């Protein structure tokens, strides 16, 4: 069980590494949001599941599962809110060349 959880945690970290490469590679907001909203959530959820497997059936796992639920809801939600607000308030997502709008 220890080994399985370690492998799952490392897989999650590798997922997040892909997200980091995407962040470094693309400069525009729309592409970044497209990449990171999926990959980062998947990586975080995988790491949390690995930690939950590590502790078996206990109160620790219960709290970890609560945290998992919150992450699963909150993380895509924040991305949705940021992107939608950017679109509604006039940020041009189609011709996005990484412009500075401050």
């Amino acid at each position, binding site marked *: 069980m220890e080994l399985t959880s370690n492998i799952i945690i490392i897989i999650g970290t590798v997922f997040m590494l892909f997200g980091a490469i995407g962040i470094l590679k693309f400069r525009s*907001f729309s592409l970044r949001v497209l990449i990171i909203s999926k990959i980062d959530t998947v990586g975080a959820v995988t790491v949390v599941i690995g930690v939950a497997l590590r*502790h078996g059936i206990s109160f620790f796992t219960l709290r970890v599962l609560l945290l998992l639920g919150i992450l699963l809801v909150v993380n895509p939600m924040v991305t949705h809110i940021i992107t939608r607000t950017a679109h509604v*308030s006039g940020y041009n997502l189609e011709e996005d060349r990484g412009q500075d709008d401050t």
Partner: protein
Amino acid sequence: MQYILWPMLAFLLLYIGMAVRGPSMWDRMLGMNLASTKVILIILMVASLQDMGFLLDYAIIYALSGFIGTLFITMFWGTRKRREKEKRDGTDQ
């Protein structure tokens, strides 16, 4: 398994760099959110390594307060940009 903390720290550094450097404000907000997720994972790993369940309450608090703060910053900046846009288009009542 404590070496898993170091890649998390590297990601945290990267996303804080994104929040500081990112060209538009929306990039900064995104980087802020991602950095807070990484911090949650760091807390989770620390709690798991020390086998202390009550430290996870702190991770949950961190997630929720980061959510509220990000929501409010987004609302503020979006409202301002929207108002400017409506003034520009002449559709503001």
